[in-house]
């Protein structure tokens, strides 16, 4: 049939076009599964009763409930000192930003030491620990609420321990404090993963040069290592801000309605079918989130290229080699950190597991028994554990396989030099920043209810649509973990490969991606995690109980007692833990990491 020669030319042609093809597929998926559906909702804020208007936005901007003292400013009045006076009326938007800033700081405080531990030390179980760091990311809010109330509640573990030492109890539930800690629980792992991935590609030779020139370890870190980490730190901070700015169920599960955020309000406006105001508010939310991301991207683009990953820094043993302060101090710090991490991360997860194994009369396997009964005796219109596990895994891995090439393609296209590329980059990040409630509503209106094209109504739903929606939601992580590395790669490497005849795709696969591989793996793990944790798009696109996933099963199993839901939650914990380890082992094995 085909000779080797024609095979080769075919391969060459495919390789030459492949980036363009992936680019087109990516644009198609983004438009079909994201921009168009979201557009069907956003238009409500812009076109009211057939006429384009800005009145919806003006009303929102001038509403003191939303904008506090700034509303007066937008109304043309000068509030003066009232804009910064302590105890002022913050308004919903400012309060949402305020709690997001605090949450971001808390996530950095808890995430950076973990990144340090993962990137710089060698110890038993390091790879597994690294794989499991993203676990909090997939947990439904109800599970986190269970874990947090059991840990930090008035009868929780922390208060019991404080009681043992004769210390007064702390009242945490219903406060802003516990919500910030919960946000850190979700996002500190994100910080840790992204920063660790960057740290692992810092080139050792630059540090060695600095040390040989007489710089102490601290100086070498400050002047050589830290500047290479700033982009990753700032990016994880920007992402954390965006996520906590759009926070929703956890606020009302652990806090109080008086701590309501923008997304809480978008949800109630949608529930009331007040789409114009809901869309207007969601656009305000998006504008703020995207400007943060855009500011970060501008910064990222200004970073000069640095040698990466040619020879990573050697990991140190956790056991100090001498009694010098330089050896002891970091390790003492890590011990203190791990005590805090035990309380913030481990205790809530253990509490979830404990809740799944206890009932009113003590230890019980009833809740797991319930899962088995549902599986064997449940009606076919009821959600069942095994199909939920299977669907989650199928959707998760399929979404990962779609999101990876999408993300790498966008990363390549946005790290080329052209005007406005960072704007393109910011726009392609929109799936991270748009209100999840609006995306769900858009998918319903735009796809499930059908779109009319040339006299035909096209309906989109089912498994493929769910995978596409998950891939679109998760691919920005791949972009964000791959692009910084590509940006900083030495351009000469690429140019010499190209001059030797390698196609762009071949150079990418053989030269660039291997150099930024930790970022690729981290992005893949996040894309998978996003799919596993996704709820609102899945339930809207699913065509029946046989397409439901684990988070939907958990939601359905929430009853008067949380036992069955927490049992399903533990299943989710176990299944995703194993998956994370597998993904990273497969991915890491490929590069011998």
């Amino acid at each position, binding site marked *: 049939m085909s000779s080797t020669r024609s095979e080769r030319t075919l391969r060459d042609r495919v390789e030459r076009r492949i980036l363009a093809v992936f680019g087109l597929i990516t644009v198609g998926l983004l438009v079909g599964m994201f921009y168009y559906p979201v557009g069907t909702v956003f238009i409500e804020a812009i076109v009211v009763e057939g006429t384009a208007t800005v009145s919806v936005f003006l009303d929102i901007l001038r509403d003191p409930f939303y904008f506090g003292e700034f509303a007066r400013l937008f109304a043309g009045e000068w509030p003066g000192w009232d804009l910064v006076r302590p105890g002022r009326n913050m308004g919903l938007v400012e309060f949402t930003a305020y709690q997001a800033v605090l949450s971001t700081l808390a996530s950095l405080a808890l995430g950076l030491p973990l990144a340090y531990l993962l990137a710089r030390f060698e110890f038993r179980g390091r790879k597994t620990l690294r794989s499991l760091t993203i676990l909090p990311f997939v947990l439904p809010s109800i599970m986190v609420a269970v874990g947090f109330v059991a840990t930090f509640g008035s009868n929780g573990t922390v208060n019991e321990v404080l009681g043992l030492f004769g210390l007064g109890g702390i009242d945490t539930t219903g406060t802003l404090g516990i919500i910030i800690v919960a946000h850190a629980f979700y996002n500190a792992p994100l910080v840790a993963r992204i920063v660790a991935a960057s740290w692992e590609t810092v080139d050792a030779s630059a540090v060695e040069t600095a040390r040989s020139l007489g710089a102490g370890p601290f100086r070498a870190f400050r002047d050589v290592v830290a500047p290479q980490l700033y982009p990753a730190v700032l990016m994880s901070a920007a992402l954390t801000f965006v996520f906590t700015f759009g926070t929703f169920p956890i606020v009302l599960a652990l806090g109080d309605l008086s701590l309501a955020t923008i997304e809480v309000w978008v949800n109630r406006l949608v529930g009331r079918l007040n789409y114009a105001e809901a869309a207007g508010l969601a656009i305000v939310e998006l504008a703020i989130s995207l400007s943060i991301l855009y500011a970060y991207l501008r910064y990222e683009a200004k970073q000069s290229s640095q040698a990466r990953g040619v020879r990573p820094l050697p990991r140190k043993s956790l056991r100090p080699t001498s009694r010098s302060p330089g050896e002891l101090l970091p390790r003492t710090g890590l011990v203190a950190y791990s005590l805090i991490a035990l309380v913030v991360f481990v205790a809530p997860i253990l509490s979830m597991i404990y809740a799944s194994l206890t009932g009113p009369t003590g230890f019980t396997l009833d809740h797991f028994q319930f899962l088995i009964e549902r599986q064997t005796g449940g009606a076919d219109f009821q959600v069942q554990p095994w199909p939920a596990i299977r669907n989650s895994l199928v959707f998760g891995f399929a979404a990962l396989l779609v999101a990876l090439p999408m993300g790498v393609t966008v990363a390549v296209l946005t790290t080329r030099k052209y005007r406005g590329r960072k704007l393109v980059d910011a726009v392609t990040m929109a799936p991270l920043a748009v209100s999840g409630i609006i995306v769900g509503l858009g998918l319903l209106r735009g796809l499930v209810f059908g779109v009319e094209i040339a006299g*035909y109504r096209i309906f989109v739903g089912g498994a493929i649509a769910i995978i596409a929606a998950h891939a679109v939601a998760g691919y920005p992580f791949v972009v964000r973990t791959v692009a910084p590395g590509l940006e900083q790669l030495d351009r000469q490497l690429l140019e010499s490969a190209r001059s030797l005849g390698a196609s762009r795709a071949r150079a990418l696969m053989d030269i660039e991606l291997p150099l930024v591989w930790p970022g690729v793996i981290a992005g893949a793990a996040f894309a998978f995690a996003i799919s596993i944790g996704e709820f609102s798009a899945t339930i*809207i696109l699913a065509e029946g109980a046989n397409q439901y996933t684990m988070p939907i099963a958990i939601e359905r199993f929430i009853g008067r007692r949380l036992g069955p839901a927490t049992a399903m939650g533990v299943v989710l914990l176990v299944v995703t833990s194993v998956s994370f380890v597998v993904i990273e082992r497969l991915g890491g094995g490929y590069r011998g990491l």
Partner: protein
Amino acid sequence: MNRRKFISAVGTGTMIAVAGCSVENSDDGGEQSTSDGDDTNTTDNGTTETGGEELPEDEGNELVVATYAPFIDAPSTSPGAWLKEEFESRFDAEITYQTPSGELNHYIEQQNAGQEIEADVYVGLTTDGLVRADNNATEQLFVRDLDVAGLETVKDGLDFDPEGRAIPFDTGYISLVYDSTRMEAPETFDGLLEEEYRGDLIAQDPASSETGRAFLLHTIHEYGEDGYLEYWENLQDNDVRVLGSWSDAYASWSEGEAPMVVSYSTDQVFADMEGQDLAKHQIRFLNDQGYANPEGVGIFANTDTPNLAREFIEFLLEPDVQGEIAQRNVSFPATDNAELPADYAELAQEPPEPVTFSYDELQGSVDGWVEDWERQFAGN
């Protein structure tokens, strides 16, 4: 006719599973939706349907029942499976359940999008839901002036729809549930404001839970639309916590975060089922009143099985079925001749004085009431 073809193309085709989308010539769809008025009964020219004899023939014997998810799929007990089995054994029919996450809003949205609604009946209509549908749906969503056998057995005061679209099939009462081993709950709304109950109450967000909404409406019923905001200001000063869903609140209460929670007056039925200490599950009807939350069933205006839908509603009102629904949904029957075990009332408590707002009282007011309240409560 067209509708079934439409559903099989959209709902179950393997094409969707493979391709993720399906295509239908929308000329058919367009004609269907404009011709709805012919075979249903709610055209604006006043041809309202009242008797079964005027109904057109059913197409097929599949009854698509739309409802909220816990009605068919709750971890403890739900009536869905039993109802399906029993109805199918008594009638030549097949029930298919639909539980979209948007619940009633899904169908309002679907109608407004000009897409045909596949469901024939909706189980779980509330006064609020009807008001929302009427304020937002472009066309009448449900068949009006239903007259079904058994309607005369529905208890006075539960019949919440003046236009006869929703037939009540059960009701719940919202009360406080409290742990009497820790405290004794106050007897009145005013009592909740006393210092000794500071931080003792957990309620729910009216936007995301039926109980929270009923509790807010109850305070409006008690203090009037001019007084409820001040009452809530005082309640907030006394550290009431408003969580999101009923399960958020109930979980927090179960963990001992506060001794009182807004919940259902059937709480002891569950507690008893699970062998819990009933002293920790005491019911308090503030001011001796309980806010009634009747649930109704209605027939979608464009149903293609109007006779079967009517038979289903009549079936729901049968005395034995009423008893089963009440027990399996852990609620109270809507009719006065329901067959319930004699000891049901021991654990499922009814308030001395049920109160509720009528459709006419809520229509035009409820959104404003709730909005004023939430802006006050969340204003920071």
